[in-house]
């Protein structure tokens, strides 16, 4: 009952935050055992070519400040707990976006004794961004899809 209420509250918060966020989104990057390929592409979003900070998207240092978690890597056994703790620490609405093939479905690492084979076995994921690694523009499209803004951005010529 309590959990149901919390889930409802989270859902309503999620819709509300999408209205309120507008052009301000704070992201925390969580490395759940990736090879750094996706992380480099993600950090490339902040370089002069893509420059997501002009859209108001910012990378922050703590999950407590973040509206969204970008998770890379397939969730190794040691980082499973770290990911759960990070998810628990994140501010509601706790939007989780899985970046790369490992986070989406195990990728080339797959499912083994050391790897969960997908982030969605640990935390609920709202958007999957496949690719090995995905282009920075594809990651940006995934972020926009999580905010339900992708269609509007495409219509505007982005």
């Amino acid at each position, binding site marked *: 009952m309590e959990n149901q209420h919390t889930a409802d509250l989270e859902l309503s918060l999620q819709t509300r935050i999408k209205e309120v966020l507008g052009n301000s989104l704070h992201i925390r990057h969580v490395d759940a055992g990736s090879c750094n390929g996706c992380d480099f592409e993600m950090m490339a979003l902040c370089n*002069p*070519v*893509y*420059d*997501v900070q*002009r859209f108001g998207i910012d990378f922050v240092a703590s999950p407590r400040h973040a509206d969204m978690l970008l998770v890379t890597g397939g969730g190794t056994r040691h980082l499973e707990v770290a990911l759960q703790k990070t998810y628990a620490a994140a501010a509601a609405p706790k939007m989780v976006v899985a970046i790369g*093939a490992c986070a*989406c*479905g*195990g*990728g*080339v690492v*797959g499912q083994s004794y050391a790897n969960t084979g997908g982030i*969605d076995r640990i935390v609920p994921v*709202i*958007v*999957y*961004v*496949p*690719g*090995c690694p*995905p*282009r*920075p*523009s*594809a990651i*940006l*499209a*995934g972020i926009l*899809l999580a905010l339900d803004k*992708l269609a509007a*951005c*495409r219509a505007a*010529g*982005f």
Partner: protein
Amino acid sequence: MFEILRKIWQTGTVTKRQPLAEAAGKYRGKIELDAAKCNGCRDCVGICPSGALSGSSDRPQIIIEHHKCVFCGSCADNCEQRAIKMTNQCYLEAKDKQDLIARIEVSGEKCG
């Protein structure tokens, strides 16, 4: 000092006005299976390093799980029928995992 300023002046703006532009033509993106050409030999299933392609011997069907694909292009290189192609499509984001799974019925001459 003057040299640096001159280089900055020459470079100009590098920021992309349209960050969601299409990838380059040679970009290895989403794989595409031509069901008309495929004969169901499942060489691609054997060569796939991440198990993104699957098929069984009793059904003429190839299942492509795009969320597992690592875009190495081995399937396209090893397809004798040239039925699999790498497109330059890089925007594969989806809210539901089922949208990323394609079940393709093939002619299946070699199936079994």
